């Protein structure tokens, strides 16, 4: 369009002078703009200061970082008991962090869990880079997820075999959410296409029922279903393990939500794209695979990341059916008699871990949205 408009050269205008405010001027406009604003600033400032001082006092100054062991080699939490209520007892983290991160995974093999976490992080970082957004990314995912499976199970390449019921901690949280996404995504694309289908009313009906049914019930009911009903579904005698059953429930749950996100992308494409593909005589799958999906999926990456953040947090629900994820291992660590009274410290650490993951993803998604929005608006 811009090619047809005749550009009239405009006389260069002087750049407006930057209004730089001094700190005092800034404070007057942003903190003390009116009487009410000043009152709010003073009240908030007072409470925040009080809270910050109290928190620093509790977390850093009066806190206990390590405790002594007694003669039998047992930890003696007396130091923590003395400051209880006034200072944090970080010794519980110091003592339990490996258990919280890796659960009951054999202590000498926990480096494998650490590598798995690193692999997941690398996978996220690579997937976040736009220059890797191409079909090959799928192969990277398959390769990484296979490596992760090998590392966790072991039994080959001289690695000790670790049965699945010993897995735990952060790797489980990452496995449930990432494998959930990896398997739910293709299913979600199919379901979204089915829901948009105009020629296959029966398929459309099934997809609508599936999506609305899953979105209408809480995840917990699906997890209960996986833990108590799934064994009934299987042939007599066959009983898949708990983690796999929970994973299936999370995949089915995630697929319904992702399908709605993908549908949003399909709907956002202008109709001309569909018509042009039809006019070229492409078959349905050529049209979708070559023309529609590559564009539609690109636009839905930010909401996709937001949905993924949701799953990442929702995997913590497996606690209720007794699977050893990050939150469960934190809770189990607290079951030890000497640490029972220090749950605040452990929960703060867990919150920090979840926060770091979710915050990073949310920031990324927001940045991406702005960037993609810019290129579309152009």
């Amino acid at each position, binding site marked *: 369009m811009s090619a047809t408009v005749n550009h009239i050269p405009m006389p260069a205008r002087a750049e407006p002078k930057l209004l730089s405010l001094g700190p005092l001027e800034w404070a007057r406009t942003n*903190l003390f703009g009116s009487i009410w604003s000043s009152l709010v600033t003073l009240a908030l400032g007072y409470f925040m200061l009080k809270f910050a001082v109290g928190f620093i006092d509790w977390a850093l100054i009066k806190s206990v970082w390590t405790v002594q062991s007694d003669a039998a080699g047992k930890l003696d939490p007396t130091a923590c008991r003395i400051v209880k209520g006034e200072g944090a007892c970080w010794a519980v983290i110091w003592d339990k962090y490996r258990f919280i991160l890796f659960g009951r995974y054999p202590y000498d093999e926990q480096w494998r869990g650490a590598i798995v976490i690193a692999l997941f992080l690398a996978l996220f970082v690579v997937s976040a880079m736009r220059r890797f957004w191409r079909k090959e990314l799928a192969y990277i995912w398959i390769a990484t997820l296979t490596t992760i499976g090998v590392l966790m199970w072991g039994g080959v390449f001289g690695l000790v075999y670790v049965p699945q019921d010993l897995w735990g901690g952060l790797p489980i949280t990452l496995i449930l959410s990432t494998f959930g996404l990896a398997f739910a995504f293709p299913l979600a694309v199919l379901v979204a296409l089915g829901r948009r289908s105009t020629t296959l009313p029966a398929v459309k009906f099934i997809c609508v029922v599936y999506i609305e*049914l899953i979105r209408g019930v809480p995840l917990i009911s699906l997890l209960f279903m996986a833990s108590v009903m799934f064994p009934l579904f299987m042939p007599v005698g066959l009983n898949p393990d708990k983690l796999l059953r929970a994973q299936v429930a999370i995949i089915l749950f995630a697929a319904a939500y992702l399908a709605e996100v993908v549908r949003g992308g399909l709907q956002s494409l202008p109709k001309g794209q569909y018509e042009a593909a039809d006019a070229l005589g492409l078959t349905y799958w050529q049209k979708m695979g070559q023309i529609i999906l590559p564009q539609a999926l690109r636009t839905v990456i930010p909401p996709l990341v937001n949905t993924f953040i949701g799953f990442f947090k929702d995997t913590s629900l497996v606690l209720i059916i007794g699977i050893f994820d990050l939150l469960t291992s934190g809770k189990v660590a607290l079951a030890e008699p000497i640490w029972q009274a220090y749950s605040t410290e452990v929960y703060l650490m867990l919150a920090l871990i*979840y926060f770091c993951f979710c915050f990073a993803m949310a920031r990324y998604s927001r940045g991406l949205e702005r960037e993609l929005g810019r290129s579309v608006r152009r």
Partner: protein
Amino acid sequence: MSSPRDAPRKGMQLSWADPKFRAIIWQIVILGIIGGTIWYLVANTSANLAQRRIATGFEFMGRTAGIPIGEHLIAYDPSINTYGRAFVIGILNTLQVTIIGVVLVTLLGTFVGIASLSGNWLLSRLCRTYVEIMRDIPLLLHLLFWYTMVLGLPILREAIEVLPGVHISNNGVKVPLLDWQPAHSWASLAFIVGLVLVGIARRRATRIQNATGDRPKVWPLAIAALILVPAIIWLGFGAPFHMDIPVKGRFRFEGGGAVSGEMIALLIGLVLYHSAYAAEIVRSGITSVVSGQWEAAGALGLHRPTVLRKIVLPQALRVIIPPMTSTYLGVAKNSSLAVAIGYPDLVAIVNTMLNQTGQAIEGIALIMGVYLTISLTISLFMNWYNARMALVER
């Protein structure tokens, strides 16, 4: 209807080249696969049930429950009442938490959302930080944390009296309760009738104002219908007013009303978590209203709070309602996490039920049925509200 240039209508041909025929074949194949899978699962299930000698059906609902339930809105005695009644109590508890939760989420979310757009830098920063922190922590962790906090309160014997008659302990909150008399029922009824009357009067006033420009006064009627009439009724019954104040006994409180610690922890967790989402929705709704609306209203001489209330929020509501609906649905569904901290909601009660009776399929079907009904009701109501608020274009 059809123009003469339309292609002649063809009947379907039994050939792979005919798209209609292909579509039918595909649907038969897909339905066959899905039907086959379902049939396979059902066959397995019935074989399993037969092998484990589990009876199917809902007869167990009529049996005596024997589940102790801490909180019940209707009378309940585990040694007499049935599973059916326990189930109803579960639904009521879930609804109670959902309704209170939705109201609090809306209030807190709206406040934080508006405050995060405040001109006061400190306030807006604080609100945005609140949103960021609250929604990036899993709800279950919220619940566990707040439940530990509640359990960390002083024990019942050393309960703190924050207000006269209001005691806080790790057992929950004890509050004074009004001793309910028929006089109060009649007075409340009169108040509700009054509300309806005032509503009608206001609509009439608006109609007259639109027609003539003069707005008839509504407030005399409002005072009469909302204050005078209920007060006269109450006085006519002899003005009964007796507060049932909780009295600290040796091991427990006598009298008064109680809110359990589980419910408090559940509500704090739900409200903090979901209000962060609600605040984001409100904020983006308000920013979606073009700034020209603010400026135009300002040029008319309206104050900023008036502009927000009368000009901006009504327009923002159209953007806010659809995502807010999913937040409300989220509150309803996530109230099921109560099972983790021992609040007797629907899921917790049905879970105990299915552990006792072994009726897993029926139990989960009940849970899903109830939540589907709640979800559908909320969406229907919000769709109706949305349709009412939607921009009516000529």
